[in-house]
């Protein structure tokens, strides 16, 4: 999927950013009474998630996604530059990855946020199993892609 790009170990920034993510999850629970799962929020907007809220949930879900999309612009305004990122440039590979991420999170009812952050915070055994499963599958996949060929 492209060359390996070296990244710096950033424990404090990562801890701080993680706390912001947790804070947002707490806000969504405290204000709307909902799990801040990005898959559920995305799915809710497609209209194919009858269980996860009616029309009354569409407004804040759409606004939440717009907030996610606006985040790099906020970083640009605050720091003067867009956040740095390196996205793999293997386009068919990225299309396949997107398809798998979407299908897997929909079938498994959650992703890194819903099962990971929110589910673990609820001490849900179901979410813990999901997290261990997707982390294992991801480590195996990255290892095979980077080292087996």
């Amino acid at each position, binding site marked *: 999927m492209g060359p390996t790009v070296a*990244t710096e170990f950033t424990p*404090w*920034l*990562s*801890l701080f950013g*993680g*706390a912001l*993510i*947790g*804070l*947002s*999850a*707490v*806000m969504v629970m405290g204000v709307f*009474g*909902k799990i*801040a799962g990005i*898959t559920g929020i*995305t*799915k809710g907007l*497609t209209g*194919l998630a009858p269980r996860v809220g009616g029309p009354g949930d569409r407004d804040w*879900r759409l606004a939440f*996604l*717009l*907030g*996610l999309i*606006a*985040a*790099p*612009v906020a970083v640009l305004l605050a720091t003067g530059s867009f*956040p*740095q990122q*390196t*996205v*793999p*440039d293997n386009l068919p590979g*990225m299309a396949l*990855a*997107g398809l*798998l*991420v*979407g*299908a*897997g*999170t*929909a*079938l*498994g009812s959650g992703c*890194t*946020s819903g099962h990971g*952050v929110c589910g*673990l915070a609820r001490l849900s*055994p179901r979410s813990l199993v999901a997290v261990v499963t*997707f*982390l294992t599958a991801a*480590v195996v*996949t*990255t290892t095979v892609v980077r*080292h087996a060929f």
Partner: protein
Amino acid sequence: MRPALGFIAGLIFGIGLIVSGMADPAKVLNFLDIFGAWDPSLAFVMGGATLTALAGYRLVWRQGSPAVGARFDLPDNTAIDAPLITGATIFGIGWGLGGFCPGPAWTALALGSPGTLMFLPAMVIGILLGGAAKSFPIFTTKGA
């Protein structure tokens, strides 16, 4: 009011993803590459997020009901079943390939990388397919 609060929550979430490094696929893939260019930073993201939510959830649950919602709507499905395991495995494979999970993919949209512009529409199509697959007989015979 509701859209404004939703936007602020999404913005905080997105800034958290960016500041933590979770929004950079290179960092995610290095986190997953335990036997190679390992960068353990993202363990701190998960730790910081989960501990904050663990404490914060308990504080807000004590209020009895959410500020603008009718009640706390928590998932009632506790089954560890085929859709969960199959879905999590498929998701993990995609995450390990591209380095994006759903939240970071949205925060990457405005940066316009070609890889992101391939990934995001495919992800939305995948969510529709995965939702439909939930009703397949192999996934509904037991549990769900």
